[in-house]
């Protein structure tokens, strides 16, 4: 008995000591002013090196919280909302417009106009400066080159409703992430009736709805479906892996492809507002856009004159959808509710 107790007591003591150490190590900071807290929904593999480079360059400690894929956790937007009365973050770096706009409408963000935003076209900036877009991804059609010849590949997203591809198409759950932005953009572009019609046809064509864009890509890679809708960076992962896939930037002759910029915003009543602004300046720099284009994130620079990613056509070679990002993203919640019965979600 006494041995059991001794063992147990020793174990508990040790563990408590360890956690105290870990707690101190984690929260201790040498100088409050010399750090900045950023919540990041852009994939950690891509964003972490960018933030590490900033630390190296400036000596400012970057405290980052990374997000998961939209369908795996409720994520940072909810954390930011819940923390609204006592904000912990200074900057929010989102990989798509929907969450940024949701946070703007709920009063979580503060306006900030960065000098580095000057070279970025006005479409990708908020008129009220609550967010600034940079490095964009595109919503594309991915297809398996073993199953579909390039000349047969669909040119428009309308082609996905063609009965000849029946049961051979996958999309990610349109309630979340970049797909939610895409469907909201389509509703904004086409109007409710035409958009409803398109999704009804898609459903009738046996579209497979899966949990994420990476799953869409994996199903195409594994020949379980012939094609699907996903993001450029997801396709690039498969291209780098030498998988038999190719992408189509849809609707070159019609409405154009949906372009999704990253968005960066300052948090209202942030603990380190000035440090936050400096980090935003850095993220909007040509240097970061170049890095994000060069890395496997293959993101398209929005500053003109920056070299684009190798597997993706340059910005001036395809037709981007003309979008009012604020208006499109503000439709998401309403579109989600509309689509639930249509797609049987």
């Amino acid at each position: 008995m006494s041995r059991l107790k001794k063992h147990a007591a020793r174990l508990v003591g040790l563990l408590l000591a360890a956690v105290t150490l870990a707690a101190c190590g984690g929260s201790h900071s040498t100088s409050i002013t010399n750090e900045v807290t950023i919540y990041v929904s852009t994939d950690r593999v891509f964003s972490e090196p960018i933030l590490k480079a900033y630390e190296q360059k400036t000596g400012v400690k970057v405290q980052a919280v990374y997000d998961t894929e939209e369908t795996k956790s409720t994520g940072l937007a909810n954390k930011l909302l819940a923390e609204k009365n006592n904000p912990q973050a200074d900057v929010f770096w989102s990989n798509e417009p929907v969450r940024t706009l949701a946070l703007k409408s709920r009063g979580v963000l503060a306006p900030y106009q960065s000098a580095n935003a000057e070279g970025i076209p006005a479409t990708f900036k908020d008129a009220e400066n609550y967010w600034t877009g940079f490095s964009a991804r595109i919503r594309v059609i991915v297809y398996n080159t073993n199953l579909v010849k390039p000349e047969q590949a669909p040119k428009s997203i309308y082609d996905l409703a063609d009965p000849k591809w029946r049961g051979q198409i996958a999309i990610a759950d349109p309630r979340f992430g970049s797909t939610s932005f895409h469907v909201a953009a389509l509703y904004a572009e086409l109007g409710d009736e035409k958009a409803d019609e398109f999704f009804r046809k898609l459903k009738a064509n046996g579209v497979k709805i899966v949990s994420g864009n990476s799953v869409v890509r994996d199903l195409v890679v594994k020949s379980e479906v012939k094609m699907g809708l996903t993001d450029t960076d997801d396709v690039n992962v498969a291209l780098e892996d030498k998988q038999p896939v190719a992408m189509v930037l849809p609707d070159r002759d019609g409405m154009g492809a949906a372009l999704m910029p990253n968005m960066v915003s300052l948090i209202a009543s942030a603990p380190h507002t000035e440090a936050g602004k400096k980090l935003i300046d850095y993220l909007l720099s040509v240097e970061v856009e170049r890095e994000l284009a060069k890395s496997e994130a293959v993101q398209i620079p929005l500053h003109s004159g920056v070299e684009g990613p190798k597997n993706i056509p340059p910005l001036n070679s395809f037709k981007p959808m003309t979008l009012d990002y604020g208006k499109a993203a503000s439709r998401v919640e309403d579109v989600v509710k509309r689509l639930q019965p249509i797609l049987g979600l």
Partner: protein
Amino acid sequence: MMNAAVTRNQHWFDLPSSRAAVLCLAAALFIVICALPAIYMFGVSLINPDGELSFDNYRRLLTERRQYQLLLNSMLLGAGASALATLIGAPLGLLLARSDVRGKNWWRLALVVPIVVPPYVLALAWTWFAGSMKMPTEWAYSLTSATVILGVSFYPLAMLALEAAARRVDAQLEEAALLVAAPRRVAMNITLPLVAPALSATALVIFVLAVAEFGVPGLLRVNVFTTEVFTAFAALYDFGAATALSIPLLLITLLAAIAAAIVTGESRLTSRHSSRAGLPLPLGRWRSLVEAALLFVLFVCVLLPLLTLALEAGSLRLTTAALGDSGRAVMNSIVLSSVGATLAVALAMLPGYMRARMKSRRGGHLIDLFFITLFAVPGTVIGIGLIGLWNRPGMAGMIYTSPLIILVAYLARFAPVAALLLSAGMQQIPVSFEEAAAVAGAGWWRSLTKITLPNLKTSLAAAWTVAFVFAFGEIGATILVAPPGESTLPVRVYTLIANTPSGNVAALALMQTVIALLPLMLLALLMRHWGRTL
């Protein structure tokens, strides 16, 4: 009734007031940490965007037809997974406790593996396997396959619980019965009723785990309440609606708990104090066949998914960033989950003791329901509730901005289940032990620490292990409350798997499984060591 209890207490214990004070304090602490986040969120759900009291979130629950389908799916998922887990786990537990199967320790260790594999990973492996076998997608992505995966995930709980219970049964009772009855009747009328409480309690815990699980139905696209709660958070940012949607989940849990209590009935349990375990179950010429069956279960439930993961991981290059640099996260996870499990057991001990020593049967049942309902609150709801409660200037804020908040989250989620397990264990220790101690002049604290706790070793170890395993895999609340900087391994895995090839995901999942197994093996060794020295 209450008065009688109090006056009797005064006879039993020398310092009734100190006992009452300590227990009240413990109960208050338990409620603040475990129940307050859920209560806070319930409050949020009753307030509309204009800040007025409103029942809109709940009106929806009753009026939308969609809700009935969700209710049906959630119940089928929970009941099916619980039944399957018990069907697989209970016979295994019995074999491990009583039979002469060779290499029992190895079987136990191998067969317990699914509990440390996050169910989500098991589901991933299953979809890859189904894909490679060219199974129709409708098969892989269905309520049935979600049920089977959860059943396979959780059977080790039924196995371990039944083994423990079967070992605790007093051999003398069975021997005495054998004098007058056939072995089958002894098994049905003596052994089964004695292990039934443990079995039904575990079935209930599995039911709750299955209805509260988000990862598997999310991946397999089965609409249940957890996925609906998720949608309310992730797509609509509606905290009130999300909380309201978790109420049916709690109601299902309550119903299941009541059903379990009725099925079990009020069996009077005795603790084992004979030196012999229950009657042996010699398999004779059936032994090889039984061992083959064990091998089959091992193959289907453990080897096949792990093999699928390994093949998937091996077929693609690995991101060094994913597998390397995980040292800090691994350390954090091991330290936080061990401390979390220890604190959860400590926090649960006195509330569990209170429940076990409750005089009123109805009161005892109510507290059980309270524990199990708390355990069923979705992690995300707890996470948002914790932010609302702890993210404020002052002491609370200091905890919120440090890794201590992760410990608070572990406590909030898993102390209730620890309390449930501990109170079940304490109910098996006769009150007469404590009475005897009191007669001999020991105070209640002394009798608790010197008599009750030493008799509770197995329950303590079980509660600690369960809390540890759950904490090690916790993601729903952790990801919301974790402060900036490297946090736990599951959070690292989840933040890294976005956009990486499935091979990396498989490699990370394998790594998490292996690392979760290590502390368990250590614990098993430690227990054997203790077993020898005691």
